[in-house]
Protein backbone atom coordinates (compact mmCIF):
# COMPACT_ATOMS: atom_id res chain seq x y z
CA UNK A 1 0.00 0.00 0.00
CA UNK A 2 1.45 3.31 -1.03
CA UNK A 3 1.19 5.95 1.66
CA UNK A 4 0.76 9.30 0.03
CA UNK A 5 1.11 12.55 1.89
CA UNK A 6 -2.14 14.46 1.56
CA UNK A 7 -1.90 17.86 -0.01
CA UNK A 8 -4.02 20.37 1.76
CA UNK A 9 -5.50 23.39 0.03
CA UNK A 10 -3.36 25.89 1.87
CA UNK A 11 -0.29 24.58 0.09
CA UNK A 12 -1.73 25.64 -3.25
CA UNK A 13 -3.20 28.97 -2.25
CA UNK A 14 -1.87 31.87 -4.27
CA UNK A 15 -0.81 34.97 -2.42
CA UNK A 16 2.16 35.72 -0.23
CA UNK A 17 1.05 34.28 3.07
CA UNK A 18 2.92 31.85 5.25
CA UNK A 19 1.07 29.01 6.87
CA UNK A 20 1.97 27.06 9.97
CA UNK A 21 0.60 24.08 11.86
CA UNK A 22 -0.63 22.44 8.66
CA UNK A 23 -2.73 25.39 7.62
CA UNK A 24 -4.20 26.33 10.97
CA UNK A 25 -2.10 29.48 11.26
CA UNK A 26 -2.01 32.13 8.53
CA UNK A 27 0.31 35.13 8.56
CA UNK A 28 2.06 37.55 6.25
CA UNK A 29 5.47 36.74 4.92
CA UNK A 30 7.43 39.35 6.86
CA UNK A 31 7.20 38.53 10.52
CA UNK A 32 10.18 40.41 11.96
CA UNK A 33 8.20 43.27 13.42
CA UNK A 34 5.70 40.82 14.91
CA UNK A 35 8.53 39.12 16.80
CA UNK A 36 9.58 42.55 18.05
CA UNK A 37 6.05 43.18 19.32
CA UNK A 38 6.09 39.85 21.12
CA UNK A 39 9.50 40.55 22.60
CA UNK A 40 8.51 43.99 23.89
CA UNK A 41 5.27 42.82 25.46
CA UNK A 42 6.65 39.65 27.00
CA UNK A 43 9.89 41.30 28.02
CA UNK A 44 8.31 44.27 29.74
CA UNK A 45 5.73 42.14 31.49
CA UNK A 46 8.37 39.68 32.66
CA UNK A 47 10.37 42.46 34.20
CA UNK A 48 7.21 43.76 35.86
CA UNK A 49 6.32 40.36 37.31
CA UNK A 50 9.87 39.67 38.43
CA UNK A 51 10.84 42.97 39.96
CA UNK A 52 7.77 45.02 40.81
CA UNK A 53 5.14 42.50 41.70
CA UNK A 54 6.81 40.87 44.71
CA UNK A 55 7.08 44.25 46.43
CA UNK A 56 3.63 45.44 45.38
CA UNK A 57 1.93 42.20 46.34
CA UNK A 58 3.36 42.36 49.82
CA UNK A 59 3.06 46.07 50.52
CA UNK A 60 -0.13 46.86 48.67
CA UNK A 61 -2.29 43.99 47.58
CA UNK A 62 -1.86 40.57 46.01
CA UNK A 63 -4.64 41.45 43.59
CA UNK A 64 -2.25 43.67 41.67
CA UNK A 65 -0.15 40.93 40.09
CA UNK A 66 -3.25 38.76 39.62
CA UNK A 67 -4.98 41.42 37.59
CA UNK A 68 -1.78 42.07 35.69
CA UNK A 69 -1.56 38.41 34.76
CA UNK A 70 -5.16 38.36 33.53
CA UNK A 71 -4.59 41.46 31.48
CA UNK A 72 -1.36 40.04 30.05
CA UNK A 73 -3.06 36.79 29.08
CA UNK A 74 -5.87 38.72 27.39
CA UNK A 75 -3.40 40.89 25.46
CA UNK A 76 -1.44 37.87 24.25
CA UNK A 77 -4.58 35.98 23.29
CA UNK A 78 -5.89 38.91 21.24
CA UNK A 79 -2.52 39.46 19.61
CA UNK A 80 -2.18 35.83 18.60
CA UNK A 81 -5.76 35.67 17.43
CA UNK A 82 -5.26 38.74 15.25
CA UNK A 83 -1.97 37.51 13.86
CA UNK A 84 -2.85 33.92 13.20
CA UNK A 85 -6.33 34.15 11.77
CA UNK A 86 -7.56 34.66 8.25
CA UNK A 87 -8.43 38.36 7.98
CA UNK A 88 -11.20 37.69 5.46
CA UNK A 89 -9.24 36.81 2.35
CA UNK A 90 -11.35 36.46 -0.79
CA UNK A 91 -10.24 33.52 -2.89
CA UNK A 92 -9.31 34.25 -6.47
CA UNK A 93 -11.77 33.50 -9.21
CA UNK A 94 -11.48 30.11 -10.84
CA UNK A 95 -11.03 30.21 -14.63
CA UNK A 96 -14.70 29.73 -15.48
CA UNK A 97 -15.78 32.54 -13.21
CA UNK A 98 -13.02 34.80 -14.51
CA UNK A 99 -14.11 34.09 -18.09
CA UNK A 100 -17.73 34.73 -17.23
CA UNK A 101 -16.84 38.11 -15.78
CA UNK A 102 -14.68 38.95 -18.80
CA UNK A 103 -17.56 38.18 -21.10
CA UNK A 104 -19.87 40.37 -19.06
CA UNK A 105 -17.38 43.20 -19.24
CA UNK A 106 -16.98 42.78 -23.00
CA UNK A 107 -20.73 42.78 -23.43
CA UNK A 108 -21.10 45.88 -21.29
CA UNK A 109 -18.35 47.76 -23.12
CA UNK A 110 -19.77 47.03 -26.55
CA UNK A 111 -17.52 47.56 -29.51
CA UNK A 112 -14.30 49.28 -28.72
CA UNK A 113 -12.65 50.71 -31.79
CA UNK A 114 -9.08 49.73 -32.43
CA UNK A 115 -6.73 52.25 -30.94
CA UNK A 116 -9.32 53.46 -28.48
CA UNK A 117 -8.86 52.67 -24.83
CA UNK A 118 -11.59 50.52 -23.37
CA UNK A 119 -13.40 52.07 -20.45
CA UNK A 120 -12.14 51.30 -16.94
CA UNK A 121 -13.52 48.23 -15.29
CA UNK A 122 -15.89 49.61 -12.73
CA UNK A 123 -19.30 48.44 -11.67
CA UNK A 124 -21.73 50.84 -10.03
CA UNK A 125 -24.01 49.48 -7.37
CA UNK A 126 -26.50 51.28 -5.26
CA UNK A 127 -26.17 50.66 -1.57
CA UNK A 128 -28.66 52.35 0.74
CA UNK A 129 -29.31 55.01 -1.91
CA UNK A 130 -25.65 55.81 -2.47
CA UNK A 131 -23.76 54.90 -5.61
CA UNK A 132 -20.70 52.87 -4.75
CA UNK A 133 -18.13 51.92 -7.36
CA UNK A 134 -16.81 48.38 -7.36
CA UNK A 135 -13.38 48.07 -8.87
CA UNK A 136 -12.04 45.11 -10.79
CA UNK A 137 -9.02 43.35 -9.33
CA UNK A 138 -6.64 42.19 -12.06
CA UNK A 139 -4.82 39.84 -9.74
CA UNK A 140 -7.83 38.07 -8.32
CA UNK A 141 -9.97 38.49 -11.46
CA UNK A 142 -13.03 39.58 -9.56
CA UNK A 143 -14.98 42.73 -8.99
CA UNK A 144 -14.13 43.52 -5.42
CA UNK A 145 -17.11 43.51 -3.07
CA UNK A 146 -17.77 46.83 -1.37
CA UNK A 147 -15.20 47.64 1.32
CA UNK A 148 -12.83 44.99 0.06
CA UNK A 149 -9.36 45.96 -1.02
CA UNK A 150 -6.28 44.25 -2.35
CA UNK A 151 -3.29 44.08 -0.03
CA UNK A 152 -0.11 44.22 -2.05
CA UNK A 153 1.98 42.85 0.81
CA UNK A 154 -0.04 39.69 1.15
CA UNK A 155 -1.22 39.75 -2.48
CA UNK A 156 -4.81 38.97 -1.54
CA UNK A 157 -8.12 40.76 -1.71
CA UNK A 158 -9.39 41.12 1.84
CA UNK A 159 -12.99 41.77 2.77
CA UNK A 160 -13.64 44.95 4.77
CA UNK A 161 -9.95 45.71 4.48
CA UNK A 162 -8.69 47.97 7.24
CA UNK A 163 -4.92 48.00 6.88
CA UNK A 164 -1.92 45.73 6.83
CA UNK A 165 -0.34 45.85 10.26
CA UNK A 166 3.33 44.81 10.40
CA UNK A 167 3.19 44.83 14.20
CA UNK A 168 0.80 41.91 14.20
CA UNK A 169 2.27 40.44 11.04
CA UNK A 170 -1.06 40.18 9.22
CA UNK A 171 -3.76 42.14 7.44
CA UNK A 172 -6.60 43.50 9.53
CA UNK A 173 -9.91 42.81 7.85
CA UNK A 174 -13.46 41.72 8.47
CA UNK A 175 -12.67 38.59 10.43
CA UNK A 176 -10.00 39.86 12.78
CA UNK A 177 -10.76 43.54 13.19
CA UNK A 178 -12.44 43.10 16.55
CA UNK A 179 -9.51 41.10 17.88
CA UNK A 180 -7.16 43.80 16.66
CA UNK A 181 -9.21 46.47 18.40
CA UNK A 182 -9.39 44.47 21.62
CA UNK A 183 -5.65 43.95 21.38
CA UNK A 184 -4.90 47.68 21.15
CA UNK A 185 -7.44 48.44 23.86
CA UNK A 186 -6.12 45.85 26.29
CA UNK A 187 -2.53 46.75 25.49
CA UNK A 188 -3.33 50.37 26.33
CA UNK A 189 -4.80 49.26 29.65
CA UNK A 190 -1.83 47.02 30.36
CA UNK A 191 0.63 49.78 29.54
CA UNK A 192 -1.19 52.27 31.74
CA UNK A 193 -1.38 49.68 34.50
CA UNK A 194 2.32 48.87 34.46
CA UNK A 195 3.27 52.52 34.13
CA UNK A 196 1.08 53.50 37.06
CA UNK A 197 2.32 50.78 39.36
CA UNK A 198 5.92 51.46 38.47
CA UNK A 199 5.41 55.02 39.65
CA UNK A 200 3.64 53.76 42.75
CA UNK A 201 6.52 51.41 43.42
CA UNK A 202 9.08 54.19 43.17
CA UNK A 203 7.00 56.43 45.42
CA UNK A 204 6.44 53.73 48.01
CA UNK A 205 10.09 52.92 48.23
CA UNK A 206 10.76 56.55 48.81
CA UNK A 207 12.22 58.11 45.80
CA UNK A 208 15.55 58.98 47.33
CA UNK A 209 16.24 55.62 48.85
CA UNK A 210 15.10 53.75 45.81
CA UNK A 211 17.84 54.88 43.56
CA UNK A 212 20.54 54.48 46.15
CA UNK A 213 20.49 50.73 45.76
CA UNK A 214 22.37 50.81 42.52
CA UNK A 215 23.76 47.34 42.93
CA UNK A 216 20.35 45.72 42.76
CA UNK A 217 18.58 45.35 39.46
CA UNK A 218 15.24 46.70 40.55
CA UNK A 219 15.74 50.42 39.95
CA UNK A 220 17.20 49.79 36.51
CA UNK A 221 14.31 47.52 35.48
CA UNK A 222 11.77 49.98 36.77
CA UNK A 223 13.33 52.78 34.76
CA UNK A 224 13.37 50.58 31.66
CA UNK A 225 9.73 49.64 32.11
CA UNK A 226 8.74 53.24 32.64
CA UNK A 227 10.52 54.29 29.47
CA UNK A 228 8.95 51.54 27.38
CA UNK A 229 5.50 52.23 28.79
CA UNK A 230 5.83 55.96 28.34
CA UNK A 231 6.52 55.74 24.63
CA UNK A 232 4.06 52.91 24.11
CA UNK A 233 1.33 54.87 25.84
CA UNK A 234 1.33 57.71 23.37
CA UNK A 235 1.26 55.47 20.35
CA UNK A 236 -1.03 52.63 21.45
CA UNK A 237 -3.50 54.79 23.31
CA UNK A 238 -3.63 57.10 20.33
CA UNK A 239 -4.22 54.18 18.02
CA UNK A 240 -6.99 52.84 20.24
CA UNK A 241 -8.62 56.25 20.24
CA UNK A 242 -8.39 56.44 16.46
CA UNK A 243 -9.97 53.03 15.99
CA UNK A 244 -12.69 53.84 18.51
CA UNK A 245 -13.49 56.86 16.35
CA UNK A 246 -13.54 54.70 13.22
CA UNK A 247 -15.77 52.09 14.82
CA UNK A 248 -18.26 54.71 15.99
CA UNK A 249 -18.56 55.87 12.39
CA UNK A 250 -18.39 52.35 10.91
CA UNK A 251 -15.42 53.23 8.72
CA UNK A 252 -12.22 51.42 7.93
CA UNK A 253 -8.72 52.90 8.07
CA UNK A 254 -8.52 52.37 4.34
CA UNK A 255 -11.66 54.42 3.71
CA UNK A 256 -10.50 57.10 6.11
CA UNK A 257 -7.14 57.46 4.38
CA UNK A 258 -8.70 57.59 0.94
CA UNK A 259 -11.36 60.00 2.14
CA UNK A 260 -14.12 57.87 0.67
CA UNK A 261 -16.82 59.31 2.89
CA UNK A 262 -15.34 62.64 3.74
CA UNK A 263 -18.26 64.29 2.03
CA UNK A 264 -16.50 66.20 -0.70
CA UNK A 265 -18.37 64.21 -3.33
CA UNK A 266 -21.47 64.43 -1.19
CA UNK A 267 -21.34 60.68 -0.72
CA UNK A 268 -22.13 59.69 2.83
CA UNK A 269 -21.03 56.42 4.35
CA UNK A 270 -23.76 53.99 3.28
CA UNK A 271 -22.73 51.40 5.85
CA UNK A 272 -23.11 53.57 8.90
CA UNK A 273 -26.26 53.17 10.96
CA UNK A 274 -26.02 56.85 11.89
CA UNK A 275 -26.04 55.77 15.51
CA UNK A 276 -22.81 55.31 17.45
CA UNK A 277 -24.11 52.47 19.61
CA UNK A 278 -25.39 50.53 16.64
CA UNK A 279 -22.15 51.01 14.76
CA UNK A 280 -20.10 49.80 17.70
CA UNK A 281 -22.37 46.82 18.20
CA UNK A 282 -22.15 45.82 14.58
CA UNK A 283 -18.39 45.94 14.47
CA UNK A 284 -17.63 44.47 17.88
CA UNK A 285 -20.57 42.21 18.56
CA UNK A 286 -21.51 41.19 15.06
CA UNK A 287 -21.54 37.58 13.91
CA UNK A 288 -18.24 35.73 13.69
CA UNK A 289 -17.72 35.28 9.99
CA UNK A 290 -16.28 31.99 8.83
CA UNK A 291 -13.19 31.75 6.69
CA UNK A 292 -14.01 31.02 3.06
CA UNK A 293 -10.54 29.78 2.32
CA UNK A 294 -10.88 26.19 3.52
CA UNK A 295 -7.16 26.00 4.23
CA UNK A 296 -7.25 22.53 5.67
CA UNK A 297 -9.41 20.93 3.02
CA UNK A 298 -7.69 18.13 1.18
CA UNK A 299 -6.75 18.67 -2.45
CA UNK A 300 -8.03 15.95 -4.75
CA UNK A 301 -5.12 14.56 -6.72
CA UNK A 302 -7.01 11.87 -8.61
CA UNK A 303 -10.36 10.17 -8.57
CA UNK A 304 -10.07 8.85 -5.05
CA UNK A 305 -12.91 9.64 -2.75
CA UNK A 306 -13.19 13.26 -1.70
CA UNK A 307 -12.79 14.00 1.93
CA UNK A 308 -13.67 17.23 3.57
CA UNK A 309 -14.96 19.13 0.54
CA UNK A 310 -18.56 18.91 -0.49
CA UNK A 311 -18.83 15.89 -2.72
CA UNK A 312 -20.86 17.44 -5.51
CA UNK A 313 -18.73 20.56 -5.64
CA UNK A 314 -15.55 18.54 -5.69
CA UNK A 315 -16.57 16.46 -8.63
CA UNK A 316 -17.83 19.52 -10.44
CA UNK A 317 -14.44 21.07 -9.96
CA UNK A 318 -12.76 17.95 -11.25
CA UNK A 319 -15.00 17.41 -14.21
CA UNK A 320 -14.93 21.02 -15.21
CA UNK A 321 -11.22 21.13 -15.76
CA UNK A 322 -10.89 19.11 -18.94
CA UNK A 323 -14.15 20.29 -20.39
CA UNK A 324 -14.02 24.01 -19.81
CA UNK A 325 -11.51 24.62 -22.54
CA UNK A 326 -13.75 23.13 -25.18
CA UNK A 327 -16.78 25.14 -24.25
CA UNK A 328 -15.39 28.59 -23.61
CA UNK A 329 -12.49 30.21 -25.27
CA UNK A 330 -10.42 32.11 -22.79
CA UNK A 331 -11.08 35.76 -23.37
CA UNK A 332 -7.95 37.81 -23.61
CA UNK A 333 -7.49 40.32 -20.86
CA UNK A 334 -8.62 43.61 -22.27
CA UNK A 335 -5.93 46.15 -21.59
CA UNK A 336 -7.06 49.54 -20.50
CA UNK A 337 -5.69 52.49 -18.69
CA UNK A 338 -5.86 50.65 -15.41
CA UNK A 339 -4.06 47.58 -16.58
CA UNK A 340 -0.53 47.53 -15.34
CA UNK A 341 1.79 46.97 -18.28
CA UNK A 342 2.83 43.54 -17.18
CA UNK A 343 -0.76 42.35 -17.00
CA UNK A 344 -1.48 42.88 -20.64
CA UNK A 345 -0.02 39.71 -22.17
CA UNK A 346 -1.80 36.90 -20.48
CA UNK A 347 -4.86 36.03 -18.51
CA UNK A 348 -3.08 33.34 -16.64
CA UNK A 349 -0.35 35.33 -15.02
CA UNK A 350 -1.97 35.91 -11.72
CA UNK A 351 0.74 37.88 -10.10
CA UNK A 352 -0.13 41.40 -11.10
CA UNK A 353 -1.49 43.95 -8.71
CA UNK A 354 -4.30 46.28 -9.52
CA UNK A 355 -2.81 49.68 -9.71
CA UNK A 356 -5.94 51.69 -10.09
CA UNK A 357 -5.11 53.39 -6.86
CA UNK A 358 -1.79 52.44 -5.42
CA UNK A 359 -2.61 54.05 -2.13
CA UNK A 360 -5.29 51.54 -1.32
CA UNK A 361 -2.88 48.65 -1.50
CA UNK A 362 -0.36 50.09 0.87
CA UNK A 363 -2.40 51.55 3.65
CA UNK A 364 0.18 52.34 6.22
CA UNK A 365 -0.89 53.48 9.60
CA UNK A 366 0.80 56.87 9.38
CA UNK A 367 -0.89 59.15 6.96
CA UNK A 368 -4.26 59.46 8.63
CA UNK A 369 -4.96 63.11 9.26
CA UNK A 370 -6.92 62.43 12.33
CA UNK A 371 -4.98 61.32 15.26
CA UNK A 372 -2.32 58.86 14.73
CA UNK A 373 0.21 60.68 12.68
CA UNK A 374 2.81 59.36 15.04
CA UNK A 375 1.43 55.91 14.42
CA UNK A 376 4.57 54.81 12.69
CA UNK A 377 6.63 56.28 15.44
CA UNK A 378 4.17 54.65 17.77
CA UNK A 379 5.77 51.44 18.62
CA UNK A 380 9.09 52.08 17.04
CA UNK A 381 9.87 54.13 20.05
CA UNK A 382 9.30 51.27 22.41
Amino acid at each position, binding site marked *: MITRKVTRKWEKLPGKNTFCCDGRVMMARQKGVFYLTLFLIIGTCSLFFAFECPYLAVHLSPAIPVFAVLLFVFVMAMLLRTSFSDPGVLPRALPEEANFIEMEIEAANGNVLAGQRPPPRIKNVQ*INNQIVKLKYCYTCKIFRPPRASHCSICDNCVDRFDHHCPWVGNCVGKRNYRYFYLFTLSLSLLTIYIFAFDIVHVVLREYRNFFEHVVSLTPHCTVLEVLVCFFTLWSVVGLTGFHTYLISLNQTTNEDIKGSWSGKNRVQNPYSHKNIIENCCEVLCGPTYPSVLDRRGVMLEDSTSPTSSDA*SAASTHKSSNPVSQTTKSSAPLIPNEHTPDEAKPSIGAGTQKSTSSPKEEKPPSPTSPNAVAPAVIKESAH
Partner: protein
Amino acid sequence: MATEFHNLQELRHSASLANKVFIQRDYTDGTVCKFQTKFPSELESRIERTLFEDTVKMLNNYYAEAEKIGGQSYLEGCLACLTIYLIFLCIETRYEKVLKKISRYIQEQNEKVYAPRGLLITDPIERGMRVIEISVYEDRGSSGSSSGSSTTSSGR
Protein backbone atom coordinates in the same frame (compact mmCIF):
# COMPACT_ATOMS: atom_id res chain seq x y z
CA MET B 1 -39.52 15.46 -18.29
CA ALA B 2 -36.30 13.68 -19.13
CA THR B 3 -35.30 11.00 -16.76
CA GLU B 4 -31.75 10.54 -17.89
CA PHE B 5 -30.50 12.05 -14.68
CA HIS B 6 -32.01 10.23 -11.79
CA ASN B 7 -29.56 11.30 -9.22
CA LEU B 8 -26.33 13.13 -8.73
CA GLN B 9 -24.10 10.14 -9.35
CA GLU B 10 -25.70 9.41 -12.67
CA LEU B 11 -25.44 13.06 -13.56
CA ARG B 12 -21.71 12.97 -13.11
CA HIS B 13 -21.14 9.77 -14.98
CA SER B 14 -23.39 10.17 -17.95
CA ALA B 15 -23.33 13.88 -18.55
CA SER B 16 -20.68 16.33 -19.58
CA LEU B 17 -20.40 19.86 -18.38
CA ALA B 18 -21.64 22.30 -20.96
CA ASN B 19 -21.72 25.64 -19.26
CA LYS B 20 -21.60 27.40 -15.96
CA VAL B 21 -23.86 30.19 -14.88
CA PHE B 22 -22.86 32.49 -12.06
CA ILE B 23 -25.42 34.24 -9.90
CA GLN B 24 -23.81 37.39 -8.55
CA ARG B 25 -24.17 39.07 -5.23
CA ASP B 26 -26.79 41.72 -4.62
CA TYR B 27 -25.26 44.62 -2.71
CA THR B 28 -28.27 46.92 -2.50
CA ASP B 29 -28.67 46.24 1.22
CA GLY B 30 -25.02 46.70 2.02
CA THR B 31 -22.36 44.09 2.61
CA VAL B 32 -24.72 41.40 3.90
CA CYS B 33 -24.57 38.18 1.93
CA LYS B 34 -27.44 38.24 -0.54
CA PHE B 35 -27.69 36.95 -4.09
CA GLN B 36 -29.53 38.40 -7.05
CA THR B 37 -32.81 36.70 -7.81
CA LYS B 38 -32.74 37.78 -11.45
CA PHE B 39 -33.36 34.71 -13.57
CA PRO B 40 -30.43 34.13 -15.94
CA SER B 41 -31.34 33.67 -19.59
CA GLU B 42 -29.13 30.60 -19.95
CA LEU B 43 -31.44 28.66 -17.65
CA GLU B 44 -34.65 29.66 -19.35
CA SER B 45 -35.21 26.33 -21.00
CA ARG B 46 -33.82 24.23 -18.19
CA ILE B 47 -35.75 25.16 -15.11
CA GLU B 48 -38.85 27.03 -14.13
CA ARG B 49 -38.32 30.56 -12.98
CA THR B 50 -40.25 30.12 -9.75
CA LEU B 51 -38.20 27.13 -8.65
CA PHE B 52 -34.99 29.00 -9.23
CA GLU B 53 -36.20 32.11 -7.44
CA ASP B 54 -37.42 30.07 -4.50
CA THR B 55 -34.02 28.48 -4.12
CA VAL B 56 -32.18 31.79 -4.19
CA LYS B 57 -34.67 33.45 -1.83
CA MET B 58 -34.33 30.59 0.61
CA LEU B 59 -30.54 30.87 0.50
CA ASN B 60 -30.81 34.62 1.06
CA ASN B 61 -33.00 33.99 4.07
CA TYR B 62 -30.51 31.57 5.52
CA TYR B 63 -27.66 34.03 5.10
CA ALA B 64 -29.74 36.82 6.62
CA GLU B 65 -30.40 34.58 9.60
CA ALA B 66 -26.68 33.86 9.96
CA GLU B 67 -25.68 37.51 9.81
CA LYS B 68 -28.50 38.88 11.93
CA ILE B 69 -27.25 41.30 14.55
CA GLY B 70 -29.44 40.92 17.56
CA GLY B 71 -29.62 39.48 21.03
CA GLN B 72 -28.11 36.16 20.17
CA SER B 73 -25.11 37.56 18.34
CA TYR B 74 -24.41 40.00 21.18
CA LEU B 75 -24.59 37.21 23.70
CA GLU B 76 -22.30 35.04 21.63
CA GLY B 77 -19.86 37.92 21.16
CA CYS B 78 -19.72 38.90 24.82
CA LEU B 79 -19.47 35.35 26.07
CA ALA B 80 -16.71 34.61 23.61
CA CYS B 81 -14.82 37.75 24.59
CA LEU B 82 -14.98 36.84 28.27
CA THR B 83 -13.49 33.45 27.55
CA ILE B 84 -10.87 35.06 25.26
CA TYR B 85 -12.50 33.27 22.36
CA LEU B 86 -11.47 29.85 23.62
CA ILE B 87 -15.11 28.90 23.73
CA PHE B 88 -15.06 28.53 19.96
CA LEU B 89 -12.89 25.48 20.39
CA CYS B 90 -15.85 23.79 22.04
CA ILE B 91 -18.96 25.19 20.47
CA GLU B 92 -19.92 26.10 16.97
CA THR B 93 -20.73 29.67 16.08
CA ARG B 94 -24.22 30.46 14.89
CA TYR B 95 -22.87 31.24 11.44
CA GLU B 96 -21.28 27.81 11.17
CA LYS B 97 -24.53 26.16 12.21
CA VAL B 98 -26.41 28.04 9.52
CA LEU B 99 -23.76 27.17 6.94
CA LYS B 100 -24.36 23.50 7.69
CA LYS B 101 -28.08 24.03 7.18
CA ILE B 102 -27.34 25.74 3.88
CA SER B 103 -25.15 22.88 2.79
CA ARG B 104 -27.90 20.38 3.54
CA TYR B 105 -30.47 22.51 1.77
CA ILE B 106 -28.33 22.77 -1.36
CA GLN B 107 -27.73 19.05 -1.35
CA GLU B 108 -31.46 18.44 -1.06
CA GLN B 109 -32.27 20.94 -3.80
CA ASN B 110 -29.70 19.37 -6.07
CA GLU B 111 -31.16 15.92 -5.54
CA LYS B 112 -34.79 16.87 -5.88
CA VAL B 113 -34.92 19.78 -8.25
CA TYR B 114 -31.71 20.48 -10.12
CA ALA B 115 -30.13 17.15 -10.92
CA PRO B 116 -33.27 15.85 -12.68
CA ARG B 117 -32.97 18.90 -14.92
CA GLY B 118 -29.30 18.45 -15.60
CA LEU B 119 -28.15 21.25 -13.34
CA LEU B 120 -25.99 21.36 -10.24
CA ILE B 121 -25.64 24.09 -7.67
CA THR B 122 -22.30 24.68 -5.97
CA ASP B 123 -22.39 25.91 -2.38
CA PRO B 124 -21.37 29.61 -2.45
CA ILE B 125 -18.87 29.04 0.35
CA GLU B 126 -16.78 27.03 -2.09
CA ARG B 127 -16.53 30.15 -4.24
CA GLY B 128 -15.74 32.60 -1.47
CA MET B 129 -19.41 33.56 -1.01
CA ARG B 130 -19.13 35.61 -4.16
CA VAL B 131 -21.33 33.68 -6.57
CA ILE B 132 -23.77 30.82 -6.76
CA GLU B 133 -22.30 28.64 -9.45
CA ILE B 134 -24.80 26.58 -11.41
CA SER B 135 -23.27 23.95 -13.64
CA VAL B 136 -25.29 23.04 -16.72
CA TYR B 137 -24.85 19.49 -17.93
CA GLU B 138 -25.50 17.93 -21.27
CA ASP B 139 -26.23 14.29 -21.78
CA ARG B 140 -23.10 12.73 -23.29
CA GLY B 141 -25.12 10.66 -25.68
CA SER B 142 -26.82 13.73 -27.05
CA SER B 143 -25.75 14.87 -30.46
CA GLY B 144 -26.77 18.42 -29.79
CA SER B 145 -24.29 21.25 -29.53
CA SER B 146 -22.13 21.12 -26.53
CA SER B 147 -21.93 24.82 -25.92
CA GLY B 148 -25.55 25.84 -25.86
CA SER B 149 -27.69 24.94 -22.96
CA SER B 150 -30.93 25.65 -24.64
CA THR B 151 -31.07 23.00 -27.32
CA THR B 152 -30.62 19.75 -25.55
CA SER B 153 -32.14 16.84 -27.31
CA SER B 154 -32.74 15.31 -23.93
CA GLY B 155 -35.94 17.24 -23.71
CA ARG B 156 -38.30 17.21 -20.85
